[in-house]
């Protein structure tokens, strides 16, 4: 229990600085509409477990049956490790996921990762990063 407290302190510290500001040093943060959320069923085509930010590319079938390759980014590997217990093996090409993102403001198939469900299990949930319109 005590070590859990220490871990949570560490997570809080990492989360505080990392999730809001560290990812955004590339200017990506300003590209996403944090008041919207889009959810897709996707098939992973690529899982980039690398700096500067972990990201996943995935195929989504649109209403016409066309396949669009989407991309969703999240934190640096160190944060995903500490906050979500992720590793280089968390996702791989072929994995079927239910994935929610804060989409790109200009309507391109890119987003900031909000949530992934893999095999019925939530493996990341950053939906709290979103905000209400007008906030």
């Amino acid at each position, binding site marked *: 229990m005590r070590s859990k407290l*220490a871990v949570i302190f560490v997570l809080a510290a990492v989360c505080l600085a990392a999730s809001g500001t560290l990812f955004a040093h590339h200017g990506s943060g300003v590209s996403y509409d944090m008041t919207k959320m889009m959810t897709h069923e996707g098939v992973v085509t690529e899982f980039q477990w690398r700096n500067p930010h972990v990201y996943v590319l995935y195929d989504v079938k649109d209403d016409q049956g066309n396949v669009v390759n989407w991309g969703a980014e999240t934190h640096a590997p160190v944060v995903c490790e500490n906050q979500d217990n992720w590793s280089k093996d968390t996702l791989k090409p072929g994995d079927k996921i239910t994935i929610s993102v804060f989409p790109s403001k200009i309507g391109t198939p890119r987003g900031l990762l909000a949530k992934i469900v893999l095999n019925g299990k939530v493996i990341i949930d950053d939906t709290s990063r979103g905000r209400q319109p007008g906030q």
Partner: protein
Amino acid sequence: MSSTILLALVVVFSGIASGQAAQEQGGGQGQRRGRAQTPSPTANLPFDAHDFNGVWIGRGPFNTLSDKPPAMTPWAQARYDAAKPGIGPRAQPLGNDPMMACDPIGYPRIAFYNAYPMEFVQTKDRLIQFFDFFYVHRTIWLDGRSLPADPEPTWYGYSVGHWDGNTLVVETTGFNDESWLDNDGHPHSDQMKLEERFTRTNHDTIEARMTLTDPKAYTAPWVSDVTTWRLTPKQAMREDLCAPSDEGKYKDEMREPAASKK
């Protein structure tokens, strides 16, 4: 989107996390608000104030030294105006932050990434400070040598340290002027000198503060806020190198498609 609002949300989020932690423990702690410091079970163990060995994670200024920068010289103002950060109050979608191309992030800017682990390794003649972020190190010489009179300009400076009681006083000179001073895009010149004071206040905690003097850029010395480093022995250092090919891949596949239509 305002990064400040996002940051505030994250503050609240982590405050809730801390609060939950306190609640889970039950008993003595009670509910805490905001950016609570959960008490550490090892904080009151005996410790050697002159021993900094270990892996530490910090809380402290991130964007810059403090929210009261001194007035800039015209040289510095021009540099500041030309800098386009990706975060902070002047954030823009793409920007020209040199660290996005993997230029060395430099000192003291690396010290503001204090949520990434930092390791002190101390030997007889030196204190080596390793940073997980960018996977770099700087050497603080403890062998009594003086600062070089005419140093080679470097990204991370030349540092010497001496003990003033239980405070390690670190003086650094020998900077080039190529890196940004901070995440806001403030500049520094090659005249910059730093004085940092590190004090281990209990088994788990080092407090650090720096004073920057750079007459070519700032009309007065700039004293930073305090960074509090917390000992985190279970934390391993990762090799978080910046690789241009990885940055390029991220830029081509995520950052630019998110920001602009081709």
